[in-house]
């Protein structure tokens, strides 16, 4: 797994956009909206390694997996397999390449035709690619079943006769039938019980060793991804937030989103007392992703510009207020709901009272630690009191983070670890370096 050798798979500038316009007229009138499911992704997969792709729902990881193999057509970008460009190749050539590039799906039941026997399911790729016929084909199917830990006698059974874990094994056997080089695994264990999950993960591990396979392992469960992956890519809203060797990415975590993901995992240890990081707000829509760094709307470590001197918590809260105000349809929506306050007529409320309600809703203190910021905030609340939301938003516009303006490049901490976060613009800060230790030197 030398770092200097060429990657077996290289993905550059991959994009998949969906158009939500519902018809010809809509698209003509530009009435549709673009869902940027995958937006400019670059990744490398080395031979024999497992690259994990992790992220929450809506981050685009499944779309990414499918686009790589052209199961769905990418909108833009290039995918190179051993130097050959997949995105440009003829359908005949692509079909032949499919013997090298396979896919395992999350739902083992949905991806197996219930009317075909197990033998047919596994034999299908052998037939399509003319790999084996007759006696040899039967032998090969039996071998494949045993390789995945099932009995060769199962060839005449139907998928519904098997458990989830067994069906997944059948799916894996089918992928192995063509003797692939690379397998893209899309949430292969998410639907399985914990103990079955462990069996399948061990199986994938064994197969990798035995057949020299390379995996792209897509999942939302960090513990699973961390266990099986050599390198990990963390995705957020269609982009790669961070990618690097597993240990470098997770311990210690660097990108604030990775950090939040890790801290969110319920630890199977009742006495564990970690600090859980809570993310403010909800995941934005991929139709209209936030400007600059897409994570800025929720990032606990959003950068404060030099002109202010607030605590990090205050800064995050102020930006929250600003973001909500720009979208707010009523002043009421910016205030906290208290006992008996449901009916309050906000125009009759005193400035002080409104001030208290707004600050309570956004966890802001009675007075900000930076006097200049406090002046701006009070002025904004004044405008709210007058019912002028737009004017208030205007005032709050003074609180701008560099994270909103600049899209972070994939800053390199070293050759193998890239972090898309302005906090790392100058490279590692010193504490990260000494604590991790793993990222300074890359073992080949």
């Amino acid at each position: 797994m030398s770092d200097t050798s060429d990657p077996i798979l290289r993905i550059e500038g991959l994009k998949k956009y969906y158009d939500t316009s519902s018809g010809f007229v809509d698209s003509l009138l530009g009435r549709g909206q673009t869902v940027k499911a995958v937006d400019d992704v670059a990744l490398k997969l080395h031979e024999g390694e497992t690259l994990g792709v992790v992220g929450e729902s809506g981050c685009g990881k499944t779309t990414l997996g499918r686009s790589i193999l052209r199961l769905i057509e990418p909108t833009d970008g290039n995918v190179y397999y051993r130097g050959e460009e997949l995105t440009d190749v003829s359908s005949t050539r692509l079909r032949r390449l499919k013997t090298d590039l396979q896919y395992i799906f999350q739902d083992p039941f949905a991806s197996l035709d219930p009317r075909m026997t197990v033998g047919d399911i596994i034999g299908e790729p052998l037939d399509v690619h003319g790999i084996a016929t007759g006696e040899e084909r039967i032998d090969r199917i039996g071998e494949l079943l045993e390789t995945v830990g099932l009995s060769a006698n199962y060839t005449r059974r139907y998928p519904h006769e098997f458990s989830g874990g067994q069906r997944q094994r059948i799916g894996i056997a089918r992928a192995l039938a063509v003797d692939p080089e690379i397998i893209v695994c899309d949430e292969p264990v998410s639907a399985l019980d914990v103990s079955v999950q462990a069996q399948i993960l061990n199986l994938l591990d064994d197969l990798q060793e035995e057949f020299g396979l390379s995996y792209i392992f897509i999942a939302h469960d960090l513990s699973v991804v961390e266990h099986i992956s050599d390198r990990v890519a963390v995705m957020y809203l269609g982009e790669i937030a961070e990618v690097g060797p597993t240990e470098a990415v997770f311990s210690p975590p660097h990108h604030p989103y990775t950090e939040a993901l890790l801290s969110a995992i319920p630890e199977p240890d009742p006495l564990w007392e970690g600090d859980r990081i809570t993310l403010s707000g909800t995941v934005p829509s991929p139709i209209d992703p936030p400007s600059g760094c897409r994570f800025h709307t929720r990032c606990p470590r959003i950068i404060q510009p030099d002109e202010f001197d607030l605590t990090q918590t205050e800064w995050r809260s102020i930006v929250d207020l600003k973001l909500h105000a720009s979208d707010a349809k009523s002043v009421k929506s910016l205030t906290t709901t208290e006992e008996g306050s449901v009916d309050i007529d906000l125009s009759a409320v005193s400035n002080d009272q409104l001030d208290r309600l707004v600050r309570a809703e956004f966890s802001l203190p009675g007075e900000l630690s930076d006097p200049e910021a406090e002046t701006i905030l009070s002025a904004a609340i004044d405008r709210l009191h007058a019912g002028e939301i737009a004017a208030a938003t205007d005032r709050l516009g003074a609180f701008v983070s560099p994270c909103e303006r600049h899209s972070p490049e994939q800053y390199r901490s070293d050759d193998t670890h890239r972090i898309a976060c302005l906090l790392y613009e100058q490279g590692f800060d010193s504490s990260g370096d000494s604590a991790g230790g793993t990222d300074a030197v890359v073992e080949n």
Partner: protein
Amino acid sequence: MALLEVEDLTVEFYTQEGVVTAVDGLSYSIERGEMFGVVGESGAGKSVTALSLMRLIERPGRITSGEIRFKDQNILEMTESGVRSIRGSEIAMVFQDAQTALNPVYTVGEQISEAIRHHLDYDDHAAKERAIQLLDTVNIPDAESRYSDYPHEFSGGMQQRAVIAMALSCDPELLICDEPTTALDVTIEAQILAEIEELAEEFDTAVQLITHDLGVIAEICDRVMVMYAGKPVEKAPVEELYYDPKHPYTVGLMSSIPRVGDNRDRLQTIPGTMPDLVELPPGCSFHPRCPFAEESCSRTEPSLTNVETGQADHGDHLAACLEYTGGLTGELDYEVVVEQTDAVEKPNQLGDDQNV
């Protein structure tokens, strides 16, 4: 007197394939304000247990034996209207799939208000106010305007929060949560678990939390029951369960979870799969997969036994294994290793000290 006492509950499904004994002779109790976890894999019978508590088992399923005493009244012997008056007001349930609880045709606020009007006899205005209050309590932003939104206008996490709000609306004494966060992303899951814990404390509600996720259990439960093939195999306070598990199945389950930072190449697995509930193995249901099984394990079915005293069904930590009744000749030979992991080192937090 415990808030809830389940005694010898058996639920069977009469199917063509045969009789599926989904729950077999289950007994447990929950005290007021307690957080009780029920953990097991699919097919273990955890959800069936919960549905029985609310008398929601339908044909071909039947509750064929046992008692479910809630505040000393046997739910299984109540009239239909008696059960209905308890459901939702004294015992409330949160399912994995928020959509089963939320009617798509009514606004979320209206559904909560309806429950309040029905059970607490509030007038329209008071019910609406309480509903908005609850939506705010479960951290739904802009609660007042969201009151008039339909379920499909909420994200998955928000829907689940709305369902929790609805469940708590009548101040129930027992909240049953069946995989409440399984369908949610991990960051949302973390928030919702914290909220359940907070709310349970604030409202003094007991919670029966059903899940397959050992992390979730460790997070908020006080006591835990592990189920396998329709039977309870271990019951213990949460720390004892994790640090001193007594049943081989529990041990196997704990070792098969991948944990961030554990550096194992292979996960420990329990070979085989859960048995078909139509054809349970003789003796201990777990014996075909148990690394410590002996001949007596297929001849005798162990009942829950106190791991210290060997007494049946009495005490804090119980396990259903012949080891504790003195029936095994060999020993349960496993070791629980507790690693002292250092807290994850974080790079300097920027902000509080302005030096970049």
